[in-house]
């Protein structure tokens, strides 16, 4: 989906001459490009430079070049390894649940009566609410002693769960909240994809006597593979940088079980003033996101051919 640009290269009429459409295209792109270079690319390149220095905002004078020291210090630290592992598990769980739940919800919406389809809006609402505000509500819902969730758990005859207080549950609790926020968004996308599947394909399968399960596994899933790759990539980019919910709900604990790389970067940059280290950590995270995105993209390609 990324590399499939639709435009054909313009027939070149001279080394520096562009066709009229290309010139128009540049005109369209230029303002955005200048802006992105100034506000994104230059800061990113600056951050890349800083990642090789001992820069601290507190210090006067120019940053000192330290080569790969930040990268080495960080990659070999147990704190970073733990954070990376937490981050990967968090992202994997959020994305897997998101894909499963939003596909399920999309199928429900397709199957439900027309009058009920406006409920899609309700499913979508959490996405447009402010993270800070809803995090506080979840704090109340998750309360170990009096929270609504434990009241339900107790009503089912089960002992209370330390949602945010135990190593076993803290990360899953963050995952649940994150899925709650994001599933509605992906439901919309899956629904659109489902509607795009030609009727004939489904009819043909029915004629062949395929069961519902067979139809789902052998027809729907393969057809939905590109869209799933899209959801996975967008999900990776957003979940790997998660910060606000964690800051409010668990502050990275207990026992660093919810300390993600994004959280680590915040602490390095703004609590310890180790901007060089924070930048180095960011670039390692970038490489991880990029590699994983590329992987899902390659997988999707395979699915399309």
């Amino acid at each position, binding site marked *: 989906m990324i590399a499939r640009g639709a435009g054909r290269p313009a027939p070149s009429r001279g080394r520096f001459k562009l066709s009229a459409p*290309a010139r128009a295209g540049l005109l369209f792109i230029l303002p955005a490009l200048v802006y992105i270079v100034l506000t994104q690319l230059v*800061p990113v390149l600056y951050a890349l430079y800083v990642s090789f220095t001992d820069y601290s905002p507190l210090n006067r004078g120019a940053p000192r070049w330290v080569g790969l020291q930040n990268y080495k210090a960080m990659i070999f630290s147990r704190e970073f390894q733990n954070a990376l592992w937490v981050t990967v598990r968090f992202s994997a769980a959020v994305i897997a649940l998101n894909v499963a739940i939003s596909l399920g919800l999309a199928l429900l919406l397709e199957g439900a009566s027309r009058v009920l389809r406006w409920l899609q809006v309700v499913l979508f609402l959490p996405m447009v609410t402010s993270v800070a505000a809803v995090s506080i509500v979840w704090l109340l819902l998750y309360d170990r002693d009096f929270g609504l969730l434990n009241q339900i758990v107790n009503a089912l005859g089960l002992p209370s769960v330390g949602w945010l207080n135990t190593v076993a549950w803290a990360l899953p609790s963050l995952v649940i909240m994150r899925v709650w926020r994001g599933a509605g968004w992906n439901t919309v996308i899956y629904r659109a994809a489902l509607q795009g599947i030609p009727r004939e394909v489904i009819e043909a399968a029915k004629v062949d006597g395929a069961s519902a399960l067979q139809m789902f596994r052998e027809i729907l899933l393969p057809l939905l593979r590109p869209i799933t790759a899209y959801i996975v990539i967008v999900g990776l980019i957003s979940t790997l940088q998660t910060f606000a919910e964690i800051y409010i709900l668990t502050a990275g604990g207990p026992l660093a079980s919810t300390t993600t790389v994004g959280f680590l970067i915040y602490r390095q940059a703004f609590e310890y003033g180790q901007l060089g280290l924070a930048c180095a950590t960011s670039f390692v995270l970038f490489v991880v996101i990029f590699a994983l995105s590329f992987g899902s993209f390659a997988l999707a390609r395979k699915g399309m051919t």
Partner: protein
Amino acid sequence: MSRARFACNLGLIVAAAIVSVPLLWMIMSSIKPFSDIFAWPPKLFPSSVTLDHYVRVLEGTNFPRYFLNSTIVAVLVVVSNLLIALPCGYAFARLPIPGKDFAFLVVLGTMMIPSHVTTIPLFILARNFPLVGGNDVMGAGGTGLLNTYLGIALPHLVLTFTIFLARQFFLDLPAEIRDSGRIDGASEVRVFASLYLPISLPIVATIAIFSFVTAWDDFFWPLVVTTTDRMRTAQIGLSVFRSQFSSEWGALFAASVLIVLPVVIVFLFNQRLFIRGLATGATK
């Protein structure tokens, strides 16, 4: 009603109910009297309804001003994304520009860098922006974009993700439209403005809502780039009600509902278009 349909209806209602509990909780807490908020175990529904918390937020603090600031910034961001990101996405999708795939990859790549590390370079840019806030041509002498609406909007003026969405959307529209327009001798700008734009309402809605929410929700950057109470945004204002150990929960929830409200209204009015714009883009 078939059994399958009945099952789908039931499942959908249950799902929607589960999803709305936290939202309902927030709204209910904002109209509970003080004693109900601190009732343990907590009660979802208030014993009586009060608007005290809203009065406190709207009259006891500078919140109305913060709200105005947030609105101005968000509108600025929406307008600039529509003016700049939309045509850019179109060009990436439909126009033959040399090296555009590479450029697009770079654009996408910038999405993957955590914003915390670009804060300081961006701050330097905002402060040394030439010819504003008392700065000279070289960007020295004044405070640049600090404490200005443009400064608060700076990181969101052209969102990478809206370019991405626009590109996906236009990839999905038939290329033949452009071909026919070109045969008629229309310029590229005219092709875009009079052939594509009229059928692009869904993506316009999507970009508008997405960029509104992004600007509205931002917390960290407005905090860094503003230094006066007059320029605070609503998200920063929220922290007035919450300090360690002594939070004004009622006012906090009321303010939270107020903060969420504009987004929900914008969304409800445009949701069908928004969802179509998002969906069209996603199938490519």
